[in-house]
């Protein structure tokens, strides 16, 4: 199967080129077909490769392919190469699978748009770069995908570019990501000059070899530095503190884009990157601690910000930031497979949530404000049921997908191998955050689907269930939100229900084998006993239920007056959280404006006044004035010449007399 890996990115690339170059002249049916079929083909190829992969011995599940030598300069040799192992397999199945569903959904959602062709060409371009990102066999190919998905994101956020705010949001996303990429690039440099390569197949064995031979100890500064620099890139792409600020604004793009790029796939690239680099991260526990701490902080703060948003997509955006935090907690506490597991279940339920919100927005005629909604359950039952399924999943109620993956992460955080105390704190923050998640998600459900309709009469007449090409993807994703968790059933429950094997952990195990060995060997073995495990699991369910009950109490029992009263009573807190802790304003004031005015100063004062004014025009002015003075000497009047002669003569005579 090695030889066919390149087909996965090739199909979307072809789709991008055809729709991009000729789409304007093609009919919408053709455009839809090209847009969706290319991704479908990629998914089918991925399935075949998966089959071939499963046929192999678990320890040898690896396909590689190099298309051509890309850069060759001294010791720097980088090929356009692909690598498929269980980790990239899971990723590419999610990307092409969920991607395909969202493409299909888009044929309904975007049908009225005049730039239909442009939309599909961008979307295919995104899948192309995303495939490069997860299939790349070295960090530079990953980086191509990494920046490429950023470009696709930029273009799609600013898709309706006539609204300048959309264009600004797109630019913000690109620039903030560039700041992250700055770290990523430096990480690559340090990696190259340390290990002499950027290829996964060279770097990890080399690091392990150096470690085993004792020439590099645990927590070696250079490895910590590499991991932290790469993580800077991840905070940009995966919207973690302090670079998460672009993601809420990114909701300016079409809703399916939010589902595909800003929820299910692109933003999880950072999690994938850390999992891919697991060998180095495990060798650098300090970096792991940083990752897990930032992740926990992000998971919590983003959840609080989600509580007061009224824009249905903004709630989901903050929820995405928060959920990404959970994934990073997973990979940060060396539970790499759990991070990927949550990545996968999140892709299902969050894509479902976004697409449902798109369906709602569609029905509301473009209105995204939940204060205008209410009681939609009756009008759009399929949307309601699928969204409820996904909400139950994200809230972490058993037996829905999110329960298994989130619980696995929190359980592993509790037993953080290198830092047991920090692990407990992270577990606590994560559990509280899970409660908040359940609260704001059910707040969304209650405000949107229950109670009285609060919109205009016109909207009320417009309310309708979406067409099948939109609802079928919803049903599939909703179903996956329900059952997707059974791919990774924890041992505890597996035993209870009669030996259900944990398929995903077993499948991913070979990828993380070395890391597990290091952890087993060097970490203070924080084993959690069975009763503790049960307690943790029960706690998180109880917390989630409390969150749901609270939401029910505030938004259903008390209806509309209680939220307002609470907002009045805690006006200050309300304002701070409602304005997202003023982080955007602080950045604007501390970073953007100073740079702008400093640049103006450089231009006007340094360039204009000092260099040009004094340095360049100064001498010119001096020469001009001197010449102007000297010119007077030669003015053509005989009298002047006579006077000069007289002065000269007198001077000479005086000189000879008095010397």
């Amino acid at each position, binding site marked *: 199967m090695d030889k066919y890996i390149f087909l996965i990115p090739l199909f979307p690339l072809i789709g991008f080129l055809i729709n991009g170059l000729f789409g304007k002249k093609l009919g919408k049916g053709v455009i839809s077909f090209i847009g969706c079929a290319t991704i479908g083909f990629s998914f089918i190829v991925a399935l075949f490769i998966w089959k071939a992969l499963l046929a192999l011995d678990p320890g040898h599940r690896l396909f590689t392919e190099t298309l051509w*030598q*890309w*850069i*060759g*300069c*001294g*010791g*720097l040799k980088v090929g356009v190469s692909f690598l498929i192992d269980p980790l990239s397999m899971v990723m590419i199945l999610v990307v092409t699978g969920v991607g395909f569903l969202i493409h299909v959904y888009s044929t309904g959602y975007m049908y009225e748009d005049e730039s239909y062709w442009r939309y599909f060409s961008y979307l295919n371009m995104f899948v192309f770069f995303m495939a490069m990102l997860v299939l790349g066999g070295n960090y*530079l190919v990953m*980086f*191509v995908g990494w*920046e*490429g998905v950023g*470009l696709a994101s*930029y273009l799609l956020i*600013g898709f309706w*570019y*006539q*609204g*300048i705010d*959309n*264009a*600004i949001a797109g*630019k913000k996303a*690109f*620039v903030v990501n*560039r*700041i992250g990429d*700055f770290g990523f*690039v*430096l990480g*690559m*440099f*340090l990696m*190259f*000059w*340390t*290990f*002499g390569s950027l290829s996964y197949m060279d770097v990890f064995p080399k690091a392990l070899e*150096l470690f085993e031979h004792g*020439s*590099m*100890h645990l927590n*070696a*500064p*250079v*490895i910590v*530095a590499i991991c932290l620099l790469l993580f800077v890139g991840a905070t940009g792409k995966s919207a973690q503190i302090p670079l998460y600020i672009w993601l809420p604004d990114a909701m300016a793009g079409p809703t399916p884009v939010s589902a595909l790029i800003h929820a299910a796939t692109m933003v999880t690239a950072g999690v994938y990157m850390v999992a891919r680099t697991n060998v180095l991260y495990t060798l650098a526990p300090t970096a792991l601690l940083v990752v897990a701490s930032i992740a926990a902080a992000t998971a919590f703060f983003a959840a609080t910000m989600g509580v007061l948003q009224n824009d249905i997509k903004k709630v989901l955006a903050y929820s995405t930031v928060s959920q990404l935090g959970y994934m990073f907690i997973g990979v940060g506490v060396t539970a790499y497979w759990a991070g990927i597991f949550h990545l996968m279940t999140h892709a299902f339920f969050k894509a479902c949530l976004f697409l449902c919100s798109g369906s709602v927005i569609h029905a509301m005629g473009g209105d995204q404000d939940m204060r205008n909604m209410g009681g939609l359950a009756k009008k759009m039952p399929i949307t309601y049921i699928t969204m409820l399924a996904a909400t139950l999943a994200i809230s972490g109620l058993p037996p829905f997908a999110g329960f298994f993956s989130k619980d696995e992460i929190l359980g592993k955080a509790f037993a953080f191998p290198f830092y047991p105390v920090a692990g407990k704190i992270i577990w606590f923050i994560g559990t509280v955050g899970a409660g908040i998640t359940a609260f704001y998600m059910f707040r969304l459900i209650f405000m949107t689907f229950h109670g009285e309709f609060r919109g205009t009469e016109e909207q009320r007449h417009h309310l309708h269930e979406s067409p099948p090409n939109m609802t079928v993807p919803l049903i599939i994703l909703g179903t996956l939100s329900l059952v997707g968790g059974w791919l990774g059933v924890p041992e505890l429950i597996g035993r209870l229900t009669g030996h259900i094997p944990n398929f995903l952990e077993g499948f991913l195990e070979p990828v993380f084998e070395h890391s597990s060995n290091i952890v087993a060997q060097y970490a203070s073995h924080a084993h959690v006993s069975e009763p503790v495990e049960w307690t943790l699991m029960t706690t998180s369910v109880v917390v989630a239920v409390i969150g749901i009950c609270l939401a029910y109490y505030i938004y259903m029992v008390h209806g509309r007056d209680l939220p307002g009263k609470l907002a009045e009573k805690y006006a200050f807190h309300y304002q701070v959280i409602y304005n997202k802790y003023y982080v955007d304003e602080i950045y604007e004031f501390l970073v953007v404006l100073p*740079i*702008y005015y400093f*640049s*103006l100063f*450089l*231009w006007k004062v*340094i*360039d204009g006044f000092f*260099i*040009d004014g004094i*340095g*360049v025009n100064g001498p010119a002015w001096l020469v001009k004035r001197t010449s102007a003075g000297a010119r007077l000497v030669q003015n053509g009047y005989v009298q002047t010449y006579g006077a000069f002669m007289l002065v000269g003569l007198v001077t000479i005579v005086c000189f000879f007399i008095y010397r």
Partner: protein
Amino acid sequence: MNAPILTYVTFLPLFGVPFILALPQNSDNGKNLIRGIALVASIITFLASLRLYFAFDPGVAGFQFIEDHPWISSYGIRYHLGMDGLSFWLVLLTTFLTPLTILSTWRAIDKRVKEFQVSMLVLETAMLGTFVALDLFLFYVFWELMLIPMYLIIGVWGGERRIYAAIKFFLYTAVGSLLMLVCIIGLVYFHKEHSGTLTFDLLKLYGTPIPRMYEILFFAAFALAFAIKVPMFPLHTWLPDAHVEAPTAGSVILAGILLKMGTYGFFRFAMPLFPQGSAYFTPLIIVLSIIGIIYGALVAMVQPDIKKLVAYSSVSHLGYCMLGLYVLTRQGVEGSVLQMINHGISTGALFLLVGIIYERRHTRLIKEYGGIARVVPVYSTIFFIVTLSSIGFPTTNGFIGEFLILIGAFKVNKAAAVLAASGVILGAVYMLWMVQRVFYGELKNPKNISLKDMNLREVVYMLPLLVLIFWIGLYPNFFLNKMHVSVDHFISQVKVEKIQQESHVATIFAPLEESGATVPTAKE
């Protein structure tokens, strides 16, 4: 190589001149004929230079296609031409860009067409001569010869403040060149003292023993001349003026090729002739390069005029070239050479694009536009692709150049690499902000509603540039392979006094390496 191919390539453009001079330019047909002849002459030159591609042997360290004849024998001045892996690409860049540029002037230049096209052809010959001359005197002749047509192009066909800009350009360059001339003579004198022969031959002058103080002094004079051309901070202020006032063709040639004369000068003359002087000034040059990268980007950000923005971005891009050249690692130097070509392509393309819209609206102020993506989709798409190249987006040429330079710099000087890499962020800021203000948003200015999209001629001259953007981005080895040997040779020539240079270099990660964490496995 028997046929004097370099002479052919260098002087082929001039063959068009007598024909052009013989034609009347008082009718439209006459003007078109003149343009046609200039175009044909430059295309023939390009085709002739392609011959070099097939004959060039990338395995040879020294110069190829050598022609060496006595010229002014009594002073040891020779007509000595040759080419290596660096000048190879610069010559090809020149012969490639000139026809595209001439094609772009079809409508833009309508007065004194004859004089203009003659200037373009003379300029091409002078530029090609500068890249292939291996005799210092001959080099100097070509170097100064370039000034005249460029001065005329800015001064006659330029904008409102063209006279100021042209004189500024001329004086800046002339001051540097004169000091260089003095030092050329000084160098020749030292060589004669040492070996007894009077010669201006570059290959013989390499390695001339010069007292250290003089070597530093000579390097400083050469470096000044070249740094003005690059231009390096703080000698850059002629550039924005020259660009803003120059007609499109002038800007393209200026940015695309003339600036490379500066970096080429460092590579071919200043650094290998005076390695000790070069080593002495390395810290200063690295610092100035980094200031240039960041300063150019910041100032570009606040420009109200698109062309000036692109001009300042050149200061930033050329900062990368100088940095790469001065870290003296293989990746750095090859990246630098590649970045010279990249800059010629992407900045040349940007100037062409600015020219296209200027021809239609006669303004380059960003605030006059906004939302034009809707009316000129083809133009917007091409502009955006070139923007990606300019901000170093992977799969385009800009990424490869910057990546190689930065990874090369990181080995030698981590602080420099970190600071320089921050310029990559700023690059995205100023370009995308400009794109946003010009192309996105509502179409508010009524003058833009009937803006015409690119016509066939314009697409034709942009297309080759777009192809190269992705060609270099996707398969840079095609270009790098031709320069490996020459770059190695260059590094060995210049690196003689490496020990001295490294003492100046700050390494922020130094304690980290001492701890034994880094294992020096990476080979250059």
